[in-house]
């Protein structure tokens, strides 16, 4: 786990003047390196540019200044091959059933229909959706739909999986179980995972390293190494030092969150 998968060099994002005539400096400058096979999480106050950072790494938007590299190559305007994204919103295609949704993830790959079906079936099994392969998204729960989206992403065997608050809309129990699923996928695929989340416990449970971002314009103000073993699941929250981990994150983040609310420096 030494090679670098993603490098951010002086990355800044400034959105041009909107209807109010205001230029928004959303992000940066940010310098960071994400190692190959690492589970890297980013936490930060609302509006600090977390999702913008993910979109920059995905190639969905271009930086105003600086450069983002994936496997040593600068990401230009397109999403690089080998990158998969799971969004917070329900991104299932409502007109396709589960199997067809998952097979959609293989559109970029020039493989035969039988191979597509085989790989989709394997991932559907892996995500526990075997009995729902012919179901349409409307017939599934929110957690199951998100599993379909994860399946659609991992079926393409991406080397970098970007997760944009993927469990944000789910209840607490489902989030913990989905976290377990994600850790299992991470271990089994060997992919690098980049997670954006607003939930400190989620970041502390899942990640090897956690970057804490400042209020807008978002910059990395702390980098926390969790030191968890690779073989882990949601029961890690029972560890004595888990609380200390989330406390440290909150200590850094509290002041930034207050800034976002316009109340910097208040409280004990």
């Amino acid at each position, binding site marked *: 786990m030494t090679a670098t998968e993603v490098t951010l060099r002086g990355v800044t994002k400034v959105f041009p003047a909107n209807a109010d005539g205001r230029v928004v400096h959303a992000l940066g400058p940010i310098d960071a390196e994400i190692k190959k096979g690492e589970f890297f999480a980013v936490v930060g106050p609302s509006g600090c540019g977390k999702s913008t950072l993910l979109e920059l790494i995905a190639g969905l938007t271009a930086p105003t200044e600086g450069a983002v590299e994936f496997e040593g190559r600068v990401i230009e305007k397109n*999403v690089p091959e080998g*990158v998969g994204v799971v969004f917070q919103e329900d991104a299932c295609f409502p007109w396709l059933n589960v199997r067809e949704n998952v097979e959609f993830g293989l559109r970029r790959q020039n493989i035969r229909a039988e191979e597509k079906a085989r790989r989709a079936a394997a991932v559907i099994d892996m995500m526990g959706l075997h009995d729902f392969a012919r179901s349409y998204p409307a017939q599934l729960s929110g957690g199951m739909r998100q599993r379909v989206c994860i399946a659609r992403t991992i079926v393409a065997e991406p080397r970098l999986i970007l997760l944009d608050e993927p469990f944000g809309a789910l209840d607490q129990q489902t989030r913990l179980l989905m976290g377990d699923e994600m850790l299992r996928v991470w271990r089994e695929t060997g992919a690098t995972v980049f997670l954006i989340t607003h939930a400190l416990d989620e970041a502390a449970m899942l990640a090897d390293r956690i970057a804490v971002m400042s209020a807008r314009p978002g910059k990395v103000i702390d980098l926390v190494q969790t030191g968890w073993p690779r073989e882990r699941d949601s029961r890690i929250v029972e560890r004595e030092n888990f609380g200390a981990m989330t406390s440290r994150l909150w200590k850094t983040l509290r002041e930034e969150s207050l800034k976002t609310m316009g109340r910097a420096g208040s409280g004990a």
Partner: protein
Amino acid sequence: MSRLRLYQIMVIAGFILLLEVLCFTGVIDKVTMPPPHIIVRDFISMLLAGRYFGEIGKSLANVLAAFASAYVVGVVVGTVLHSYRTARDILDPLFATYYAIPVFAFYPLFIVMFGLGDGPQVLIGFLLAVVAVIVTMLNGLDRVPLVLKKTAQVSGLNALQTAVRVTLPFCAPYLLTAAKLALAYAFIGVIGSEFIMARSGMGYEISYAYTNFDNATMYPLILLILLLSIAANSLLSHWERVLLARRGQM
């Protein structure tokens, strides 16, 4: 059969029965309208005799031409216009007030331009239908979630592939609504035009029968138009319901 469907059938049956009673009691005199069972009898004998098949075929061909051209042009223009915000902003007021324009008033002009053939009738059907398709298409495209477009981008789809694989399938219920509207407007445009100045077609035959007090022809033809438009609309509505149910929207 659902209770709702039963009530719907009962309402229609009740209306027909009311007409029968009104005709039977003389509230509606026979010169104005024959009883419904006589209309059905005349309708069946008209079909069995093969009368007006040429007129019916000509009108339906014109309706189909107006519908198909309006639908294809409407979908393409709607899709292209959705990508060009400024052009859409310029045209939006026209779309909003379009149906205040009496298209039929231009019929004489169209005859001067296109002659006495089927062209003006198809053009009026097209003009009535096309804007409904464009507006419905824009409405559907406005509702495509951004996350689905991003998913298409992540999957490496270009603009055309995104339109074909993502945005148009998402808009399928809107496409069906557009088809229903286009068909209704095409019928109105073509049959209405035939009433005014044409020398053939179902609209002309109805108009001719009306001026000659030929109820045995006029009412069966009206019934045929009703049945055709209801059948086509029901088919599209059924398809729409299947799509919406699959998406959990019903």
